[in-house]
């Protein structure tokens, strides 16, 4: 027999009321903790992938889209740009390194990226098995792709056009797996990387098909609008295209001037990952803040529920309290007894809330992994959650303390004599 036991019995004695208070507390905690976790993990993921890239060059369009497509591989590419034109950029002495990317095809929902060895080096990739590609139609797989599609070195397959599973299959040209990477904890894990030439090879055929089917009109239009010589037209036919280029500057400040010049003088646009991601987080932050306020309201309602239930039960238990006082309990002891009820509800609510948030994150990561091939690390505990715990305890304490002060006003003799 001790205070904790009496408190616990009191809570068990009113299972529905206690359940409601705990549930509300757990829901509020779960939502806030889920937001904290998801936000934190997303931010980590986003900043890790952006490291070492100062600028992305691509076709004109939404700069955010360009960043999302080129760095995170989660949005559709903006369009194509000329390789010649980007190659001219790379000769600029301000550019330290430049990685060309060509996207647009997929296999079983995983994106195929045409690039070169530098792209793999950028992520400091190591090989689980096999080696880097050395000629077109060879392919290196990210760790997660190889695992989920059960592919190994030596396997061959045909890619699909676009990112739908129902896209046209490029049956004629088959890819051959030559290497499988170790986990890098970056976007590379979800990618299939092949030399740029493979993408061109696959799409040359594709292009011819389209021409045969009825893109003649477009071709005629092109001829009309370009009054160049036959020679120039021929050159355009042969010019290769890529989707975008990841650039690292020797001096980022000077690089900004180069970016302005590209935006003004070419058909391409530049986007800075840092700026775009900040913009994205600012947009998301608004939604997250709203959700946090909702969660906070739920937690406060939980506190109110504790308040109301203790206030009511104290009226019912007035005699009981007088009885315990007559049996030698001090008023302070009984005050703590009631505080303990609020604290127990807060603590249980917190534990259940944290468990719920982990479950939620786990379900979310399953879902996200299927749709975007992005995964979350589920089991880390945040320091913010410690503050959340203290906050929950304070709310439980306050909610219990206010009605419990009534203990100090009980007239023992009168209460015992009244009934």
């Amino acid at each position, binding site marked *: *027999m*001790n205070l904790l*036991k*009496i408190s616990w*019995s*009191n809570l*068990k*004695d009113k299972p529905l009321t206690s359940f409601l208070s705990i549930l509300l507390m757990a829901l509020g905690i779960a939502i806030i903790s889920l937001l904290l976790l998801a936000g934190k993990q997303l931010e980590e993921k986003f900043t890790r992938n952006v490291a070492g890239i100062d600028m992305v060059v691509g076709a004109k369009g939404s700069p955010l889209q360009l960043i999302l497509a080129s760095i995170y591989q989660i949005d559709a590419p903006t369009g194509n740009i000329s390789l010649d034109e980007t190659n001219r950029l790379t000769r600029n002495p301000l550019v330290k390194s430049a990685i060309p990317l060509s996207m647009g095809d997929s296999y079983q929902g995983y994106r195929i990226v045409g690039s070169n060895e530098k792209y793999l080096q950028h992520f400091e990739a190591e090989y689980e098995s096999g080696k880097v590609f050395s000629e077109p139609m060879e392919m290196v797989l990210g760790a997660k792709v190889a695992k989920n599609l059960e592919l190994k070195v030596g396997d061959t397959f045909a890619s699909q056009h676009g990112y739908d599973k129902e896209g046209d299959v490029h049956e004629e040209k088959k890819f051959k797996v030559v290497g499988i990477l170790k986990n890098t904890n970056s976007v590379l894990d979800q990618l299939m990387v092949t030399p740029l030439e493979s993408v061109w090879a696959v799409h040359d055929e594709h292009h011819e098909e389209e021409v045969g089917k009825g893109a003649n009109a477009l071709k005629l239009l092109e001829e009309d609008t370009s009054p160049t010589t036959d020679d120039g037209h021929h050159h355009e036919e042969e010019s290769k295209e890529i989707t975008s280029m990841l650039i690292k500057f020797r001096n980022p400040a000077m690089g900004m001037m180069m970016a302005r010049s590209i935006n003004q003088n070419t058909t391409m646009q530049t986007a800075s990952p840092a700026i775009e991601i900040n913009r994205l987080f600012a947009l998301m932050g608004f939604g997250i803040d709203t959700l946090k306020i909702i969660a906070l309201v739920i937690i406060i309602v939980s506190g109110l529920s504790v308040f109301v239930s203790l206030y009511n039960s104290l009226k019912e*238990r007035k*005699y*009981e309290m007088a*009885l*315990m*006082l*007559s*049996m*030698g*309990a*001090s008023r302070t*002891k009984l005050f703590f007894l009631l505080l303990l009820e609020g604290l127990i509800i807060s603590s249980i609510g917190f534990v259940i809330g944290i468990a719920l948030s982990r479950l939620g994150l786990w379900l979310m990561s399953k879902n996200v992994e299927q749709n975007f091939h992005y995964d979350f690390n589920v089991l880390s505990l945040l320091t913010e959650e410690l503050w959340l715990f203290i906050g929950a305890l304070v709310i439980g304490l306050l909610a219990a303390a206010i009605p419990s002060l009534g203990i100090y006003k009980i007239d*023992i*003799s009168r209460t*015992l*004599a009244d*009934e």
Partner: protein
Amino acid sequence: MIATQNLTFSYSSEKSFAFPDFSCADRETMLILGKSGKGKTTFLHLMALLLKPTGGKIQINNQEISDLSVGSAADFRAKNVGIIYQKPHFVHSLTVLENLLLTNYLAGKSQAKDLAKHLAESLGFAEHLHKKTTQLSQGEQQRVSIARALMNKPSVILADEPTSSLDDDNCLKVVDLLKKQIEEIGASLVVVTHDQRLKDVVEKRINL
């Protein structure tokens, strides 16, 4: 033992009481008879130190207790006085056994589980020890509250109308039980009641 001299108490200038002196030795029973409104419960609360007297003296075990501070009065009461209330009230959420042990806990004594079982057997509710008190009949609850008053082996047991809600058979049984129990632990028993049936079974009595 317990004794009082010139005990007075007033709720207000119009409503005041003066109580007759009495003394009750160990293993003795004192009956205080009086009709409603005569201040029976007030008298009992004064002896239990739940109220502070306006004047007069009270001794328990030859110790003057009328001038104890609130804190030490609570401590003294918890250790030396067992109270049986008119209606048996318990801590609702606890079982019978837990209610008995609560008496020890709140008095700061070690929890006497064996004594609780022994009392439950001799008072006839041993099979109900792990039930909630609300599951027991009125008579059973009354016996549990007697056991509770005995848990700290007090020197004085104060009973407020312990028999008013009981039929003749049970009334006599309860008094018998009480007398037997104080014999066992060597306490004084003071019963405050309007129940005339008790006149025949208790020798010492005063009227208010």
